[in-house]
């Protein structure tokens, strides 16, 4: 059964190939401002990426014509997107609110959201991890972690 035009273009490999071509072409622009010798290697790699991605695109479309279904990237997109969002917000929180507060919140939050619901286990894990980090890095090695830009340095 041939796929519709839309779903043919929405195949993961096709999308990736198109993405690489667009991004690599975008990066080619600044190479014009460089000396020829400086631009040589990066330009060669970008052009290589574009050419290879065209091959990848053609190969994937040929598979589509042959009626091969593309394997989906994930079976549970909600969980994947959720995981990515949580990781990014954790990084942002460290930056703006401070490392220790964010970590104390994130460890149990992530573990609870994704299915580990034992309150005692969460408490113990959080205390052990944060405590160890503090003891080794802050107390032992006097390493500073972000204190949060919101509070001013």
């Amino acid at each position: 059964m041939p796929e519709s035009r839309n779903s043919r273009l929405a195949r993961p490999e096709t999308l990736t190939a198109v993405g690489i071509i667009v991004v690599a072409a975008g990066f080619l622009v600044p190479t014009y401002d460089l000396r020829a010798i400086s631009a040589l290697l990066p330009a060669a790699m970008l052009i290589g990426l574009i050419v290879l991605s065209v091959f990848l695109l053609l190969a994937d479309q040929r598979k589509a014509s042959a009626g091969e279904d593309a394997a989906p990237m994930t079976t549970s997109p909600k969980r994947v997107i959720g995981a990515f969002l949580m990781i990014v917000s954790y990084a942002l929180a460290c930056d703006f609110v401070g490392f220790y507060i964010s970590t104390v919140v994130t460890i149990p939050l992530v573990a609870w959201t994704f299915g580990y619901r034992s309150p005692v286990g969460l408490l113990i894990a959080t205390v052990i991890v944060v405590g160890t980090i503090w003891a080794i890095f802050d107390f032992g090695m006097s390493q500073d972690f972000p204190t949060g830009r919101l509070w001013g340095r």
Partner: protein
Amino acid sequence: MYSDLLHALPDVFAWTNFAAVVIGVIAGIVVGAMPGLSATMAISVLVPFTFGLEPLVALGLMAGIYNGAMYGGAIPAVLLRIPGTPAAVATTFDGYPMAQKGEGGFALQVAVVSSSIGGIASAFALMLLAPPLSKVTLLFGPSEVFWVAVFGLASIIFLLGGNPIKGLISACFGVFVSVIGSDPIYGNDRFTFGQLEMLDGINIVILLVGLYALPPVIDLLETPLKTDGVNSSKLGTEPIWKALPRMNYWKTWLRGSFLGIWIGILPGAGGSMAAFMSYNEARRTSKHPETWGEGEPEGVAAAEVANNADTASALIPALTLGIPGTAVAAVMLGGLLVHGLQPGPMLFRDNPDIVFGFMWQFLFGAILLVLLGGSLATNSFARLLNLPRPLLGSVIIVLMLIGVYSIHGRMFDVYLMLGFGAIGWVMDRLKFPLPPVVLGLILGGFAEENLRLALRIGRGDPLVLFQNTTSLILVALTVAVVVGPTLKKRFIDSRKKA
């Protein structure tokens, strides 16, 4: 010189100095075993702290950490397919399949024994051959180093995986990332978009943590609650002395040690290249190459022996010439400077007790690895990684942030790592091979820099690249590695037909 070596021995056994090595090895294994934390990061965090310590205590800690971490990196590489350090990438090839087959315990034992053997060989090279080997380093000017880099890049063709187009895309991506930063000759910006943080280029640890640690974390969170498939009861642990007779990899160990020492004394390439090359060579000469990549213990042995064999040898150019052979050795050089140990020929004369003591510490670190690593790894770390999946995932996220943040002490690197993580997840799902990215990043810019230096020395004449024996040998080797396997295959095919 050899009497100096013996003279330094009693100091090494002073209890504080010896304890430093023991603590260092344990700390190194822990750091290496934590996905996201690397030896480079651990030693750079340690250096300011060592200002107040006795030289041999500080150096003992560093020697121990370096040795320990190069093995520790194998633990998550085997159990989770996350290389704990850049040098453990090649360990994932066969280590993870072994763990899936329920041979994780044996894989870790092979790793620890191989690491230890590599470390011991390397320490002996440092102790006995440092001055002559530093002469070898001097043979390598920019044009020779360029050919070494090309040789390394050529070995990417063995890492392309099932789909060569995807493999080449990975390689191009890696090489492109390596040119980000300031131009090696003129110093003008390339693709930094005005960000000062990118001027020094993309640190390998940032890329590695993003590409290799983030996708498995997403995997851990994606599948609903269930303890990790690889748990310690299935690790197949048996006492290490019972496992030893099953390890008959003398050829691989010998070759891997030699390669590791050799790559260590050349400036800049480092442990990952040693491990890749040792793995490729061992597979090429194996009687049953088809089992490689599906859980061949010898593959773990090849990778682990080589990534420990360059630890002490990377210090040979660092101590004698001031040019570190690996990123970790570069950070350690800072630790030496703090104690007034200036690299150079005088170092061995002015501070023999400290320098030779440091070498002994490398040797003992490598030996201690079997004793400490054997029991530690199989008993405790394997169990730690056996936490409920969501909890394990969330803890790794925190470790990734710490590991990347601590390299330079800035959040910018963390965001960069997350960007690479997103790319890594797509690559992982679409089965783009990751090793070519790593090798491309390590060697791409390195090859470019040395090519352009060589061309400047030759004032633009490309013939400068072929003007001496060392260069020509390297060119021949590269050609042999690239063309050799195809020729051999044709030869065998034609004989079959006949």
